[in-house]
């Protein structure tokens, strides 16, 4: 398994280099190689998770290192699914390094002893963290797309057409991609919070305690709910939506680390 683990990291790093090469030189074969490497990384990543499941009947969502490891997998997964519709080649240059980084950090972090919960509890817990990881992955992509949007928007607004103007796609495409991520991420986030509450009820005897973690989770949810509402009702799009997505994700990351470090 450690071999597969190393292969995953190697593929992600090589793929990152490939995507960056593509952004620089705009050669399609380079993109294809980077894309294949990312797929290979994703498959071996999936292999690690499956092996772990069959060996110890355990889905890796315990502790920071496992969560990061699965988060990296989810980010790549969401990206690969989105590529089917959007073909935003440049995005790979951000996603592949993010995946590589989270897997590498996960591999460095100390592995705490796994506490074995009663079956039912651990099922809720797994579901709680699993959905949150998927939601976070979608929002992470939305965040990256939002940054690309702001870069491209600034280039058009300031009439400074340079390196990025040529390489980035249209504002429309970036905007609708961000929207898709929001639509995919929000139900996951909601589900994650609900299952978290149920889990809390089982362990602590109450659904909601006003701790830091819960408060920030609530704020994150409200930010994204507001963004979704504005998009649907008022037709918010473009710059403001991109900024709000970025803000939402920053709070999300804060909440995430608060959970593990706080």
């Amino acid at each position, binding site marked *: 398994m450690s071999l597969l683990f190393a292969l995953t990291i190697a593929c992600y790093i090589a793929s990152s280099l490939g995507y960056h090469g593509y952004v620089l030189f705009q050669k399609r074969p380079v993109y294809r190689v980077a894309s294949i490497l990312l797929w290979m990384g994703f498959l071996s990543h999936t292999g690690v998770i499956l092996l772990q499941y069959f060996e110890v009947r355990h889905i890796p969502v315990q502790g920071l290192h496992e969560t990061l490891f699965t988060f990296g997998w989810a980010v790549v997964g969401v990206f690969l699914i989105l590529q089917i519709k959007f073909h935003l080649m440049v995005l790979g240059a951000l996603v592949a390094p993010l995946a590589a980084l989270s897997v590498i950090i996960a591999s460095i972090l100390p592995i705490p002893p796994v506490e074995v919960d009663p079956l039912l509890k651990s099922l809720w817990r797994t579901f709680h963290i699993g959905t949150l990881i998927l939601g976070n992955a979608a929002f992470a992509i939305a965040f990256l797309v939002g940054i690309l949007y702001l870069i491209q928007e600034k280039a*058009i*607004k300031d009439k400074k057409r340079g390196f990025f103007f040529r390489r980035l796609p*249209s*504002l*429309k495409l970036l905007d609708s991609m961000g929207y898709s991520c929001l639509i995919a991420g929000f139900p996951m986030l909601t589900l994650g919070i609900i299952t978290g509450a149920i889990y809390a009820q089982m362990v602590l005897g109450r659904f909601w305690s006003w701790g830091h973690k819960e408060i920030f989770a609530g704020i994150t949810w409200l930010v994204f709910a507001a963004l979704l509402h504005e998009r649907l009702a*008022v*037709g*918010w*799009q*473009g710059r403001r939506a991109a900024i709000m997505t970025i803000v939402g994700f920053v709070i999300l990351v804060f909440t995430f680390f608060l959970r593990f470090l706080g």
Partner: protein
Amino acid sequence: MVEKSEIVVIGLNHQTAPVEVRERLAFSSEDNPKVLQTMRQNPYVDEVVLFSTCNRVELLVATKDISKAVEMVKDFFADFKKTPRQSFEQALYVYDGDEAVRHIFRVAASLDSMVVGEPQILGQIKESYQEASSNRTCGVILNRLMHRSFSVAKRVRTETGIGDHAVSISYAAVELGRKIFGQLEGKAVLLIGAGEMAELAVEHLVTNRARPIFVANRTFERGLEIAEKFKGTAIRFEEVHDYLKQADIVISSTGAPHYILVRGDFKGVMRARKNRPLFLIDIAVPRDIEPEINRITNVYVYDIDDLKNAIQENIEERRKEARRGERLVDEAVVQFRRWFECLDVVPTIVALREKLEEIRQAEIKKTFASLTSASEEDRAAVDRLTVSLIKKILHDPTLFLKQRGHKDKKSLYVDIIRRLFDLDEPNNREP
């Protein structure tokens, strides 16, 4: 022994001649066959192709006597166009040998064009070649040269980004629109005023399936006229502000001395538009659209200078790509020269001899290996036999090639022999 033909180009282009001179020498497509037929009769001309576009007039000639051919072409221009020689002679350039080959490759690859990378030139060159082909004024040399120039042009286009960036104002507007909206299909366009550049931009947008089109003009009748051209709707000039809610792209080009659209006009517009982006293009001087409007979120204002700057960057970009194109051309020139040098009689005879000698050696070796009982003497006899066999076989073809006479056919015969016996290096064969 008769000399082989040389390649020479005589002509002028946008760099050497102003438009008054170019139009004086320009040949229409009706003139073209007449020119080719007249040239064919000329004793100094073996093969000929004529290029005449609005930016260049050139004769590509294969000849055995370059200086006589050049003089003859100059006289011909003066005679055919009934204009004194000194009126254009200054602007003429003459290239021969490698330089002529390079020039033709550069022209076909659009490296010599006024707008570097513009795609029409290759089509024009192909037409000229077709005309020459149907008039049978192309032989082995120019056929090969023209086909090579097509493949060089294709290579330059696909391997460099020479044609990638917009270099006209109206096209730059479309390119920007694409960066904002992605697809232009179904995007509403509002044209305020009229003018060649503005209408050209609308035309580009329409070809990209932007619609509906609204046209506002101070004189409603003129507006109707323009609207009809684009299958659009004419609106009253006073209605412009209402249409800001519907339009996605606004092109303004009026002669008004003041702003037509000011920031105040956009109050409530974005809300009504549900924040859909709005792209305003101001082609008028003095400007029609207040620059301040660019600060509104999701609204983008480009004036004529902004568009010009955009083009300037693209032109720079093309120049960079053109340098890579030149390298590809250099490569092709060297390759062509290798083929061309082999067209001479002597190297062909030498190559033919070498080939046969090679075969002889190989066969002798094979035979002797199995003929173990043969004495030294027998072997020498067999060796002599094969040598004289080859000599006899080569005698007539050698004589034929060295013969005087068959003027412009010589290159053809040489070419055929080279192909029959497969004498060319593998990387130099006709693709």
